[in-house]
């Protein structure tokens, strides 16, 4: 191969463009900015209809003005609740932190051609490992915190790696195996939390021992002594995770192989890459990121483990990754948006009596409009432009 063909455009020097246009071209503004924004707007519009049509009392009275006010109040409460105060921002960060890491987990697997639904289980594995380090060790924080995070990465990575290994060795489809490993991890967690080694003495419910104060991630807003500001350094860990993913896929050889394998498994095989190794490795890295997310949840947000500390984060993260188009920067922004919905949703619930569950609906709709760019284009009468790299996973056979 010569340099010219690798470069892809051997002919004609690129024409000069205004700086701003060139910038938007480079980040592919159409696919990475316009479509996500339109998807969010579309979701909010559909969400408004759902809120309005379920306001049965007002509908019976024909009070359209009242319904519109409720919708307006709800959509005002969302951003103000999340960003209007330092406490709101802190809560947004708390929600966004595990979403970033779990979203990266999904994205790493997705760009390697794997549909990893297993973030929940991998978070459980990572979180339980880190809580164990957290309450058994009693060293200085500078040793204990990194060790707990590392334990989270390794445990989550191994839990994900099993799935990768199964896929590589036997062809077991990861969608099925990750769903199953999620349940298994959940049940194992529940069981562990009832064992003497983990359960908090004197408690009947499944709650783990508490991580020592030195083993907790430091507060993010350390200058304030308001205890309600829960945001912690896990956020920085999550950002570091995003940088790691960028480095992995843009700068490292392994990342290049993973990407090649993800977009064309046959090509990767002919180029001498080892699909079995790559599959296992991709799932290990993905699981490690989710495990790290579980660890930040434990030694950052909660301080102890419960049977549901992974909550629905693993599933929400899939939406985050899709919205962020499986790119690290996109995922950070998407996780923030979801954090805003979560933190703002709680305020909305207080102020307007609209249940927090509407946030779930909005998230699902955002996923829909992101995953179906053709549908979004149809609604907004846009012309097709550029690559619409819709994700495509392999069927049961592959």
């Amino acid at each position, binding site marked *: 191969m010569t340099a010219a063909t690798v470069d892809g455009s051997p002919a004609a020097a690129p024409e000069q463009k205004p700086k701003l246009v060139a910038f938007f071209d480079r980040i592919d503004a159409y696919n990475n900015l316009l479509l996500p924004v339109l998807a969010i707007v579309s979701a909010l519009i559909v969400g408004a209809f*759902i809120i309005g049509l*379920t306001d*049965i009392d007002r509908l019976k009275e024909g009070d359209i003005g009242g319904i519109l006010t409720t919708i307006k109040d709800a959509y005002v409460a969302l951003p103000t609740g999340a960003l209007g105060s330092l406490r709101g921002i802190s809560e947004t960060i708390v929600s966004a932190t595990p979403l970033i890491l779990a979203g990266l987990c999904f994205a790493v697997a997705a760009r390697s051609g794997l*549909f990893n*639904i297993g973030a929940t289980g991998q978070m459980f594995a990572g979180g339980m490992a880190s809580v164990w380090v957290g309450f058994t060790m009693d060293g200085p924080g500078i040793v204990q915190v990194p060790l707990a995070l590392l334990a989270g990465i390794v445990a989550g990575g191994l839990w994900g790696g099993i799935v990768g290994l*199964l896929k590589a*060795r*036997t*062809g*077991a*489809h990861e*969608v*099925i*195996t990750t*769903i*199953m*490993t999620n*349940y*298994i991890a959940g*049940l*194992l967690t*529940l*069981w562990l939390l*009832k064992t003497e080694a983990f359960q908090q003495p004197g408690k009947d419910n499944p709650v783990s021992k508490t991580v020592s104060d030195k083993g907790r991630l430091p507060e993010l807003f350390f200058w304030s002594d308001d205890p309600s500001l829960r945001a912690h350094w896990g956020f920085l860990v999550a950002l570091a995770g995003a940088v790691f993913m960028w480095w992995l896929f843009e700068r490292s050889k392994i990342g290049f192989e993973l990407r090649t394998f993800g977009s064309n498994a046959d090509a990767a095989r002919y180029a001498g890459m080892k699909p079995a190794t790559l599959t296992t490795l991709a799932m290990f890295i993905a699981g490690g990121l989710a495990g790290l997310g579980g660890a930040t949840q434990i030694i950052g947000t909660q301080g102890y483990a419960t049977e549901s500390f992974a909550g629905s984060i693993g*599933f929400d993260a*899939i*939406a985050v990754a*899709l919205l962020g188009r499986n790119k690290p920067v996109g995922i950070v922004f998407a996780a923030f948006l979801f954090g805003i919905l979560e933190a703002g949703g709680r305020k909305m619930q207080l102020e307007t009596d*609209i*249940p927090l*569950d*509407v*946030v*779930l*609906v*909005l*998230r*699902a*709709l955002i*996923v*829909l409009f992101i*995953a*179906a760019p*053709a*549908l979004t284009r149809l609604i907004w009468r846009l012309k097709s432009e550029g690559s619409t790299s*819709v*994700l*495509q*996973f*392999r*069927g*049961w*056979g592959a």
Partner: protein
Amino acid sequence: MSTTTPAGTTATTDATTVVGTPLTFEEKRHARNLGIAYIVLAGITMIFLTGHSGTATFNLDAGRSFGLPAQPLAWFVAASLAVVAGIQLWRGFGKWTNVVLAMASLLIFMSFLAWAAAGREFSFIGMLASAVTFSTPLIFGACAGIMCERSGVVNIAIEGLLLNGAFTSAFVGSLASGWPGMGPKSGFWVGVLAAMITSALFAWLLAWLAIRFKVDQVIVGFFINFFVLGLTSFLSSRVLTENPDYNDTPTLGAWKIPLLERIPVLGQILFRQTVFVYGAYVLVVVFTWFLFRTKWGLRTRAVGEHPRAADTLGVNVLRLRYRNVIMAGAIAGFGGAWWTATLGRFNENITNGRGFIALAVVIVGRWHPVGALSAALLFGLFDSVADKLSLLNTGLPSEFIKMTPYLMTIVVVAGFVGRSRGPKAAGQPYESQ
């Protein structure tokens, strides 16, 4: 033998003496793994020698019962497993492999039950009857999944379709019972009809997005699960909690089938159930017949395996896919109503992942309705065993019993018991030329 012989072409002569046809390397490895699995299982059975002793009494119907001594049974099972493992490693069982595996599993299961219930009484028949009950929504969900996947559309959305069925049947069923000329019973069936229609609509959405917009089918299915979960939770906290009248349907009692219900043992397990259970069995029979004996079935299978070929022969691929996915939605909606019929109300996320289990049932059942029925019964059995054993207080954490079906699914999907292969074109959008 297969462990020592190098996997070359010269090894065929001794390896073929039993089976008759040459074994591939894959099959040999398979046979060896199975042998090792038997040894492991024999080891696990030895655990049943510890702890409890005494005779377990299993109650059947009408005062009949039978007893199993826990420890002698465990010795017997462990010993026979060791023998089976030896034979498996030495020469294999040929065409009897699966039968032997089934027998061995049954022995282990009985030994386990005897160990758990040693020295006490255990309602054996009650366990089997509730296994049948628990498996019902799985059968509906799995049949919906098979119908989609056989025609080439991967359906991850079974969970969402079931959940929608449960919500709609509870909500509309409660509403309709207040309509003029309607009682709670007829209102319930109106609710079931509404559940079928709305789930069919969601299935249509799945088909529309997957076929018209070629969105990845796993993502669409994921979206529908996500959306239905959000919507039903939202509606239930916004509408149902404020109006409890909208979430109150009658539970469906057992409908005893005359004569058949008097068959000893089987009668109580199979023929004193709700209409949903009978519906599931009728569905499996009818669906199997249609899938393998009619023109529709042939076309469906063709479209799932090789849409191009079917298209060339004049089958309208996309229309058939639309139609099948929508029908599957209606089936899943009916299956979702099972929760309403059983509990008489809707709770948030009431299906709790049963739809994903149904997906596993599809695969474990190898995309065949009868296979799915057996797999669903097995999953139902584990559910009911976990349920009943929590009453016995065996010291064995119920989490591990609940875990078994999930582990088993992985074992099956990973092909340790035999490769499970799906329709070839499942998941791929089709573009006619």
